[in-house]
């Protein structure tokens, strides 16, 4: 038999990131690569700097030092580059606006527009070297961010359908019927009743809101998704369903994920690989099984041996 093809392209190249709010507060000298199709878990206790790191990686907060490089495949059009005025797109997020706009879906050219400010010839994007508008467009169109609290990721005042459709409209889709159809499809996909497409998220339970946030984030099929404690605020009975759903979506959509969690059981079931953080630094990395079954660092051993098992 032939040697298996095990190489996977690097999607996110994180180079020596430091972001400190004060001595020992934040994250320091974080350096790793995320490969395509990987689910990377960042684990550690509260105050370990994992949330700060996620904010830097996901484009929300510039580091004091270091670079975050997003390596796109060379032949891929950059969705973000197709939006000339990101601010305009953001205003089309009320459901009424969607109803008014009834013209056929704008043809998305899919061509890569070459301009002078191309980051590098390799189609790499240096997250904090590109302009603010372009970074925000990238976050909204090619990446996804799932917040721990669904209220931070949803628009609570507009319908479930409008929440799901927002990113699609930002990509230029205007056909109301098609947006609604996609909305219902995604509600089914995350096991929400499509009959509730016109209900506002505030009428949903916490678990349902979290599923809606996931649908809203994944509807544009982002390649890279950041998740901050996605099962954190949920009842245990709801967690299991969500975990299974996330695993299925990761597989079906071929997602690459950076997942922050303090829950090692969640990390075991979702992540391929783990970074263990303590006091702002990575103390150990490895396959999830290795970290949990054969921890090397004193802190990881303490963390793993402190987990309660029912």
């Amino acid at each position, binding site marked *: *038999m*032939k040697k298996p093809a095990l190489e996977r392209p690097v999607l996110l190249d994180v180079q020596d990131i430091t972001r400190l709010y004060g001595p020992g507060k934040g994250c320091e000298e974080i350096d790793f690569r995320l490969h395509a199709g990987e689910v990377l878990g960042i684990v550690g206790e509260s105050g370990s700097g994992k949330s700060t790191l996620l904010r830097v990686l996901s484009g929300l907060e510039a580091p004091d030092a270091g670079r975050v490089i997003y390596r796109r495949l060379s032949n891929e059009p950059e969705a973000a580059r197709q939006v000339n005025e990101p601010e305009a797109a953001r205003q089309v997020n009320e459901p009424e606006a969607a109803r008014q706009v009834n013209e056929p879906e704008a043809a998305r050219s899919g061509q890569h527009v070459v301009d002078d400010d191309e980051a590098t010839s390799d189609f790499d994007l240096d997250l904090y070297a590109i302009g603010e508008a372009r970074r925000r467009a990238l976050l909204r169109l090619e990446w996804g961010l799932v917040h721990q609290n669904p209220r931070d990721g949803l628009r609570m005042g507009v319908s479930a359908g409008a929440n799901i459709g927002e990113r699609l409209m930002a990509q230029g889709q205007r056909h109301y019927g098609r947006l609604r159809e996609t909305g219902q499809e995604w509600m089914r996909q995350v096991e929400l009743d499509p009959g509730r497409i016109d209900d506002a998220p505030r009428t949903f339970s916490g678990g349902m809101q979290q599923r809606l946030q996931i649908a809203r984030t994944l509807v544009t099929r982002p390649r890279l998704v950041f998740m901050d404690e996605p099962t954190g605020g949920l009842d245990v009975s709801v967690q299991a*369903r969500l975990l299974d759903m996330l*695993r299925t979506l990761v*597989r079906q959509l071929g997602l690459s994920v950076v997942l922050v969690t303090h829950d090692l059981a969640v990390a075991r079931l979702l992540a391929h690989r783990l970074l263990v953080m303590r006091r702002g630094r990575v103390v150990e990395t*490895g*396959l999830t099984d290795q970290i949990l079954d054969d921890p090397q660092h004193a802190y990881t051993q303490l963390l793993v041996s402190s987990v309660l098992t029912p």
Partner: protein
Amino acid sequence: MHSTTNAQPRLTVEALQKSFLLHGQGGIEIDVMRDLSLTLHAGECLVLAGRSGIGKSTLLKMLYGDYRIHQGRIRLHFDDGELELESLPAYAWHGLRRDVIGYVSQFLRVVPRVATVDVVMEPLLARGADEHQSRQRAETLLARLNLPERLWQLPPGTFSGGEQQRVNIARGFIGEHPLLLLDEPTASLDAANRDVVVALISEAKARGSALLGIFHDEEVRNRVADRLLPLDGSLGACAADTQENLS
């Protein structure tokens, strides 16, 4: 004489060592394996023998990347070259486990509340296989292992030990991996189901899979093993394969 004996082995392990350093217990170091070597060919089943605690499961876990490899070499051989597992980057293990190395562990560890049939078919879906065909394969295996059909749509969390083990076996064998690691797959099975596992192992060998297993049940061991590798209590002398032919 086995037809593949002269061919290149599928797996070579050389001078493998393992110890655990326990920081929380005053930094004591526990040696569990020293200087272990073996070769394994396609189409054969090598059975690890020796008392409990001798490092049999440890070896399987190192081969699966579950335990880290600090000293010694583990190589997989292919027609077009070899892979050194001790130097493989973490991300490369994902594909290796999906396509090359399968593992039937002693304990089933799955997402709670997922249906048994979905648990079993997941390794095929991970390769992008057709869902309908994967489901059929899973059901065929569960039926062969005499798991009642009414249980297929239930999550295995509340099943008996023997039922969970059969789910685990089905999930482990469905992927038909070229290298299959078996950690006591028959421990809590009745005679009829032990026979099914023996048949699954024979079929895997016939397909050209290489199997490395732990079987405490002597009768099963004698039926499946082409060779025995006794691990020795002194840790040092557990090296060479005995070329004992059991068939």
